[in-house]
């Protein structure tokens, strides 16, 4: 294994044992392989229970893998030196409520090995970066959810990490807060920080990530650069038809990727070539085409297709 990779995961699996007798097993993760290159912003995408948080928890030494290996800069996550180079923001972070924001970020810095004037300066700097100067001396118990998210992000970057692991960093934030967090992530990327970013807000992944892996039911179902994954897809055309029913349109025999009958009109999506024929057939049958719009295959479409292909429920891993 190369020691220069910020994250390297091979055949990672995790089975949770549940119940009083520990006889119920939930396979949260099954044979995951992952490589994150230096400086990359890497997205972990998947529905609830896909294994995203489990992967991150294994990387942060919060959960032990049942099988396989995980490495941070070539070291196992149990190694403190590996974690020294990492900043971590968990999902729904819960900082110590009795501390003020500044005290909490200072504690995080001290635990990461910082001290003295350097730490004081850096605490001020990161609190400024998350725009929490005015609330820095307030106890965290008085913070809103958005403020907790920001101060937790500040503690994640206080030690100038080489790798930033963010679990749902924009959850609970208003649009302005989301934009600020996204800008902060982009600034960290500019600084050369590698970022592993886990979310189910697809627009965030599309805006921030260079490479993405889609997990479903604990398995990897898609992996690649965002551009590669989207460019390989055939173009789709969205049409709105009036004067014909959905049944009549389906009767033309074209594959429709999406179809919705609103009574007075039908909204449908189909491939580029099929759209040309469908357009002619609709007009010949007396229908009116009120809108034709080519649509870009989005990461959301890719995500939903991946879910369909995996033929898996959207919640939870495999249970036995």
């Amino acid at each position, binding site marked *: 294994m190369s020691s220069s990779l910020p994250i390297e995961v091979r055949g990672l699996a995790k089975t949770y044992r549940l119940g009083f007798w520990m006889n119920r097993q939930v396979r949260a993760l099954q044979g995951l392989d992952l490589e994150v290159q230096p400086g990359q912003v890497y997205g972990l995408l998947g529905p609830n229970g896909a294994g995203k948080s489990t992967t991150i928890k294994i990387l942060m030494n919060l959960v032990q893998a049942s099988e396989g290996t995980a490495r941070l800069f070539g070291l196992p996550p149990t190694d403190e030196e590996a974690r020294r180079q990492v900043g971590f923001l968990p999902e729904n972070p819960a900082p110590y409520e009795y501390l003020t924001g500044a005290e909490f970020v200072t504690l995080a810095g001290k*635990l990461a090995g910082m*001290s003295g004037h350097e730490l004081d300066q850096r605490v001020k700097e990161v609190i400024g970066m998350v725009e929490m100067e005015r609330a820095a001396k307030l106890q965290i118990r008085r913070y809103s959810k958005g403020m907790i998210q920001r101060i937790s992000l500040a503690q994640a970057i206080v030690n100038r990490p080489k790798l930033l692991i963010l679990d749902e960093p924009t959850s609970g934030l208003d649009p302005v807060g989301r934009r600020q967090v996204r800008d902060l992530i982009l600034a960290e990327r500019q600084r050369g920080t590698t970022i592993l970013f886990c979310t189910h807000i697809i627009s965030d992944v599309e805006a921030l990530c260079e490479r993405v892996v889609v997990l479903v039911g604990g398995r990897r179902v898609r992996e690649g650069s965002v551009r590669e994954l989207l460019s390989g897809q055939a173009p789709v055309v969205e049409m709105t038809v009036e004067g014909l029913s959905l049944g009549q349109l389906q009767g033309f025999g074209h594959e429709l990727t999406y179809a919705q009958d609103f009574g007075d009109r039908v909204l449908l999506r189909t491939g580029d070539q099929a759209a040309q024929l469908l357009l002619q057939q609709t007009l010949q049958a007396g229908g009116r085409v009120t809108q034709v719009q080519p649509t870009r295959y989005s990461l959301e479409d890719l995500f939903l297709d991946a879910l369909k292909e995996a033929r898996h429920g959207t919640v939870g891993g495999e249970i036995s």
Partner: protein
Amino acid sequence: MIREFGALTLNGFREARRNRVSVVVAVFTLGLLLSSTLVTDVTVYTFQRVLADVGLGAMAVTLVLLAIFLSSGLLTREIERRTIFLVVSKPVSRALFIVGRLAGNMLTLAVLLLAMSVVFFTQEALYGMAVTRPQVVAAGMLWVELLVISSVGFAMSSFASQLVSAVVTTGVYFAGHLSADIYNLASRSESGLIQWVGKGVYYVLPNLARLNFRPQASYEVVTPAMDILQSAAYGIGYAGVMVALAVFIFSRRDFK
């Protein structure tokens, strides 16, 4: 490592200091200590003994209850509230986390014990009584007793819920004061099994009677320094075993 340990300890101290329960307990105990003046008003001959009994007794009861409260729920609370995620993910070993948090609790208890002792000894001085060596020893050994109780609470908290930890730790406190009696009673039995169980209970439970020097303080009995040191070493050793157990269990836990 020392810097991280210091940060964890001071954070634990700050948490306890800002916890309303600690403040209420401190105020309550100080009130209780001062109320011993009322008890001494109705005492004719054994004035100093009653003052020492009530004062040291009040300190012991309230600090033991506080130690159980602070220790038995600490790790469980950290896991349930998920505050642990932000600490264990830092370059800090789980063993250091446990030891640092315990040190924070013990620092809190030491500060409270010191404040209470100052009030108690000042009260004695105001009555014109001398502070005796057995009283100082009793106050010091109370801290060792609190260390043992806290470490049991930590060991329980590493795998059980707050309620279970608190109940078991309270049970261990009472049984620990009776462990020598359990051993003596069992050794008088004719049944080999009961003798064996009695011995087992005696060795597993902490012998807290060995750390209780309050009767000696009341009766002004001077204990040899070697006995005090041996008792302190026993208490610290027992606490060490409990902390090792807590670390062993905690290091293997998944935080879901």
